[in-house]
């Protein structure tokens, strides 16, 4: 017969499991940082800036073997950093109002039957795998953009520089916005539903019509939740690799806003999609260091985002019910 476990032993085992979890995370940061070191050792932080052709630099790294000379570690990754920022900022800028409006619709305006439909719909959208979004993007949206939206004159204007196939910033931003919006909707809906009925009643009793009451009171009350949702969505957008790799043209190019409308049709690469595209090259030491440096950048951004989210929420909490 088994002796009943003592509390201390059980506590020890459970604690060890928790510790193991922490260690995994620490190991993750450590391994990524260590492997990224050669790039930082070579140039400090300058590798984030612009300069030269990143395509050439990466090709050099890909083709190097064994113990490469120091010059091979030269990298100027600005085009893909810029691409990442561009895609993320635009996608969040579209998804945030969409999500807030949708959440207001679900919680405040929709009749009960419609609300019952919307809830599973949002949950479904949030769980569609990114490879399926990418598939729809590359097999439906990219040809549509390529065949119907890009004009010959636009193509000619960039002849020689880059080829406009339809795999573009536009498709990447639209699909990414659709991917992150449901996440935000879920969080904001929960926050809206938690607004105390006393405020609702108070606003009604003051003779304020429904939309104005919602805007002035409810949306103000849930500002911390909106911030949290935005942070979460931005983190998700930053890290999206598969879908972007499938729809954004996989071309080392920094889309130029000066090109007017053509700007939307230009291909790009983000940090995450570069990691996916060059995953096979991880054997070459120089490229390996580059990939890990980029991965470290993503990791640190995710950390900074969480921290920033926490910090922004604090002053907003001034106006909430004191905890």
């Amino acid at each position, binding site marked *: 017969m088994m002796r009943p476990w003592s509390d201390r032993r059980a506590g020890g085992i459970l604690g060890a499991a928790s510790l193991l979890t922490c260690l995994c995370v620490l190991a993750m940061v450590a391994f990524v940082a260590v492997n990224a070191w050669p790039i930082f050792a070579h140039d400090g932080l300058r590798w984030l800036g612009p300069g030269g052709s990143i395509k050439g630099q990466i090709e050099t790294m890909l083709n190097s073997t064994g113990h490469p000379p120091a010059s091979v570690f030269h990298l100027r990754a600005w085009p893909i950093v810029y691409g990442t920022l561009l895609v993320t900022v635009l996608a969040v800028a579209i998804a945030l109002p969409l999500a807030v409006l949708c959440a207001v619709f679900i919680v405040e305006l929709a009749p009960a039957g419609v609300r019952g439909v919307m809830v599973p719909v949002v949950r479904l959208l949030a769980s569609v795998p990114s490879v399926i979004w990418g598939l729809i993007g590359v097999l439906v949206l990219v040809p549509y953009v390529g065949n119907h939206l890009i004009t010959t004159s636009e193509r000619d204007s960039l002849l020689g520089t880059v080829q406009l196939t339809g795999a573009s910033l536009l498709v990447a931003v639209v699909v990414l916005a659709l991917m992150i919006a449901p996440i935000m909707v879920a969080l904001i809906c929960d926050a809206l539903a938690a607004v*105390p009925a*006393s*405020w609702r*009643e*108070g*606003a*009604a*009793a*003051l*003779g*304020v*019509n429904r939309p*104005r*009451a919602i805007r*002035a*009171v409810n949306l*103000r*009350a849930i500002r911390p939740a909106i911030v949290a949702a935005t942070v979460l969505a931005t983190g998700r957008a930053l890290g999206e690799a598969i879908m972007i790799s499938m729809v954004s043209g996989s071309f080392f190019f920094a889309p130029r806003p000066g090109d007017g409308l053509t700007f939307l049709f230009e291909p790009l690469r983000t940090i995450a999609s570069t990691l996916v595209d060059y995953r096979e090259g991880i054997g070459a030491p120089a490229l390996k260091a580059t990939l890990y440096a980029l991965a470290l950048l993503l990791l640190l951004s995710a950390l900074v985002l969480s921290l920033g989210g926490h910090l922004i929420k604090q002053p907003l909490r*001034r*106006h*909430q*019910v*004191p905890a």
Partner: protein
Amino acid sequence: MTTAVAELKSNEPERALTVPPVRTIVLDRPPEPVRPVSQRDAVRRIGLAAGPERLRLEEVSVSYGGKDAVRGVSLSIHQGEVLALIGPSGCGKTTLLRTLNRLTELTPNAARTGRIVLDGHDIHDLEDTALRARVAMVFQQPNPFPMSIFDNVAFALREQSRRRPRRAELEPLVLDALRRAGLYEEVKDDLHRPALRLSGGQQQRLCIARAIAPRPEVLLMDEPCSALDPISTGVVEDLIHELRRELAVVVVTHNLAQAHRVADKVAFMYLGDLVEYGTAQQVFEESRAPRTRDYVRGTFG
């Protein structure tokens, strides 16, 4: 100040025949700020001559999902008077109060018969937002919005008007409302503090300021002091006493002593029926119905 108020009011569009031009209130006497205690008369009950009739209820019945909450109540509410609705819990006084500004419509299966007339117009025909601009309410639990003090008081002023008023227009109205609510002295140094940081009594007075800022004709108060400590209760009762000069005030209270202190007219309700209605003197001392006598003596409650 009255011109600024009038200008705000005139932003409302002209209406069709049955609906009056909104908010042309003629006050009996100019509004006065709450006077400090030392300047008030020693005798609490100043006999004010009752002003014009503001609200009239004619055979009002309210039911929730088929069950009657209020049956056949007829009352008259005048400016310059405080009407106290008293009665044991569940007698329908809160329901009756909430019917006066049609807040019962927020509940899905509420239904109402009878007529309620505000300044000669049936409230059924007024738009609900227009009605609630003239009949304000203060709730049992103070419910200031999650904004600054200034924004709270300015809320109704901002959101009720057609175009967005500028801050310079709002400021005198906000300060005036705070003075009339007796809160100005305590918060004047920083009006942008979050309203939720105030104490309970201050929050309730802020809610009162918020309610009276748009110059309503009637103020409904649903057990305004039940969540407050005795000192704050006293302050709010003084406030009610002063506010009745410019408004008609209806107070629901389950506290008989408070009714004694505050009321000019009293309506006693029991299980949905209006049992007795008259001046405070009549109901408390010369009650006609035996049930009233029992209640005010505390035989049941």
